[in-house]
């Protein structure tokens, strides 16, 4: 999607939820290897992954951080900015099943002339477990 629809600070409320659902594929993991420069074999070589004790290839943690960044980018629009976002890779996610990127607004505040919004962010697997929990802070433009 393009980001022509602008989210404004005034329109955001604590408790508001955002979401980006997708199904990462093995092709996407290979694209990520090329895009990020991380060629660790556990993300594309099933036998290698199993030899390290994993059930099979797994999604790069950093890709999940980047996908949560995409969710935030598409929400804050061209007038907003992502200030900071961080996550822990608690659970492994595998390609070929739904990965839900989610966020919920926890606080609105004004600081240093900026309209800041804090969120809890995470990815959830099909069982609803939070595999990549974290927090984010974004800046939004004001209507006034």
């Amino acid at each position: 999607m393009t980001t022509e629809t602008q989210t404004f600070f005034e329109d955001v409320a604590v408790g508001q939820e955002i979401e980006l659902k997708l199904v990462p594929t093995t092709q996407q993991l290979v694209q990520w290897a090329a895009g990020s420069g991380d060629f660790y074999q556990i993300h594309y070589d099933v036998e290698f992954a199993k030899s390290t004790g994993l059930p099979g290839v797994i999604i790069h943690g950093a890709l999940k951080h980047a996908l949560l960044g995409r969710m935030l980018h598409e929400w804050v629009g061209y007038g907003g900015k992502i200030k900071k976002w961080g996550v822990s890779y608690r659970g492994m996610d595998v390609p070929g099943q739904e990965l839900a990127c989610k966020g919920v607004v926890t606080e609105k505040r004004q600081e240093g002339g900026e309209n800041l919004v804090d969120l809890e962010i995470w990815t959830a697997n099909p069982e609803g477990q939070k595999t990549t929990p974290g927090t984010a802070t974004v800046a939004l433009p004001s209507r006034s």
Partner: protein
Amino acid sequence: MAEYEIITPEMEAAVGIESEPWTLEVDRLQIRLFARAVGYTDPLFYDEEFAKSRGYRSLPCPPHYLGTLVFDPATSDPTFGSPRGRRPRLNHGLKRVLNGGTEIEMFDTICAGDTLTATSKIASLVERKGSLGTMLITTTETTYRRDGTMVAISRGTGINY
């Protein structure tokens, strides 16, 4: 004094030491490749004229992308591309590694054509027993500068087991 299985006094001494700098290049080709990998359809990351019409100098970096390491076969890690010898090597003897977490803080927009200089330091070392045996958890803080001005900080957690 804690009893460690993995952490040695030598490893503890490496905490906090700022590395030698290395260079990262930001170019349009890699921005498009990165944006494809994350599944963006936003023209901002593909169409330079569109990006300029939105006030950017060139294609901006999608979130998480902080430039690409300049690969040197003599010194770069063949799997991760990271520069070897830029920080004290931890001789922990553990073969396997997992990524434990990432935090990125942005201070300015980074665009294609920028050259960044990064330095890193080990911020902390922690040992923990888990399902994969005794694990070493290393937090590394990397600072990215453009023309001497800090533009981003990334904090990464590595798990060796």
